[in-house]
């Protein structure tokens, strides 16, 4: 077996994986590091990834675990500090992304993971609960709390959003 298969996987799936990583970490640099960690693990365990029923879901799971374990490891030793959230892209208004990242950053990491799994990756409550090791009730509670927090934050800081336009 050569490297082509893995290369194809990275080319086809990195975009979606990176976007999930960006929502989870809210930082381009941290997202790149997280994706790098997940892809390296996928590379090392490639036979298992290939043998999985859904290799893409497998690597998304690796990425999520890496995020959660990294947060646990950091939480006892690090204080959150402001960091640059984006690099301007010519011709693109970054204000929506900046506002979204700022709002997500205000959520607890686990609540953020619930939001990403439920509303970005479109997982069911049951699947989200399974992936995060939570009860379904806990997922629902965290989901509601996160949505209400985001609504308040995005209304205040994102006056042109569709939500605040209603």
């Amino acid at each position: 077996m050569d490297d082509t298969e893995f290369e194809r996987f990275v080319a086809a799936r990195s975009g979606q994986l990176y976007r999930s990583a960006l929502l989870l970490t809210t930082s381009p640099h941290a997202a790149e590091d997280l994706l790098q960690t997940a892809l390296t693990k996928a590379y090392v365990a490639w036979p298992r990834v290939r043998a999985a029923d859904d290799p893409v879901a497998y690597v998304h799971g690796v990425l999520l675990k890496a995020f959660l374990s990294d947060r646990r490891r950091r939480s006892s030793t690090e204080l959150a500090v402001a960091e640059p959230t984006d690099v301007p892209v010519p011709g693109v208004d970054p204000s929506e992304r900046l506002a979204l990242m700022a709002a997500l950053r205000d959520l607890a990491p686990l609540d953020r993971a619930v939001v990403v799994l439920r509303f970005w990756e479109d997982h069911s409550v049951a699947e989200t609960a399974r992936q995060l090791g939570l009860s379904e009730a806990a997922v629902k509670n965290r989901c509601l709390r996160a949505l209400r927090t985001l609504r308040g934050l995005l209304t205040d800081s994102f006056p042109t959003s569709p939500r605040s336009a209603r």
Partner: protein
Amino acid sequence: MSTDLDDLTPDDLADLDDLRDLMARALDDVDVPVGRMHDRAAVDGRRLRRRRSALVGVGGLATAAAVAVFAVPLTGGDTTARDDGYAGGHNRAADSVPFVAKPGYWDMPVAEIASRLTDLLPQRVSLTSYERTNTDHAPGESDVVIGYLTGTLSGRTGPGSVEVMLTQLSDQAQRDGAVSQGETWGDQDLSCPPELSSPDIEVRTCATRSDASGRVVERELEMVDHGVTYREVKIVARGGVVYAATANSTQRKWTAPPSASRNPLTLDQLARIATSPVWTSWAPSGS
């Protein structure tokens, strides 16, 4: 999408679609460095797999007991990137200079290791089986086992295990070996275990040999763990490490019962095998 709709207020329901739309718009133009991602994953992955291969031996036989006792020196440091199954210490110091794989005797195919080991075994001891195929190889890696042998020996007193591991030392590890107390070479620890308090584990022998500059370049170790005798010889030589180990148990897990009353090889016999020049004199073709 299945959702907990009963729990949501009208505002929450409106938020769901808004949030999805916002996420889609906000991330639509995100640029992903795909090429860099692939290249770094491949480089880091190969390095980690080499590290894991090296630690298969470390965790396999003789040091299985030692690991249980002085796991901190062996596996200290960063433990990230290990929850998918690959094990072993991640030495930050050894990572300050990227690991560069070089051709060397550590690239010896398992069949060659088996052949040379067979020639070195004492009379009435034979290699009865060994793992020939790497069933967990990474993309681009051969399924041929390279650089290590794990197998079963038959002896007069019954069957036992044997491992031979040939490992490349990184440039950084060689420099670390020169500046440390001389007992640590990157991931390779040649220090003796500390005094033990466990009644189930006994260090019977631990002897080290140093080179002219005072660096430890060889360690011979014999330990008894839950009735199984583990013997190990580890030698730093020619930019790599030769590791040989044997046990009077054919099961590769801690607290496994003995498969024979005695180990198939004495420590002296094992040392003669590990110090034989047949390992370090080999070179891959074309190198």
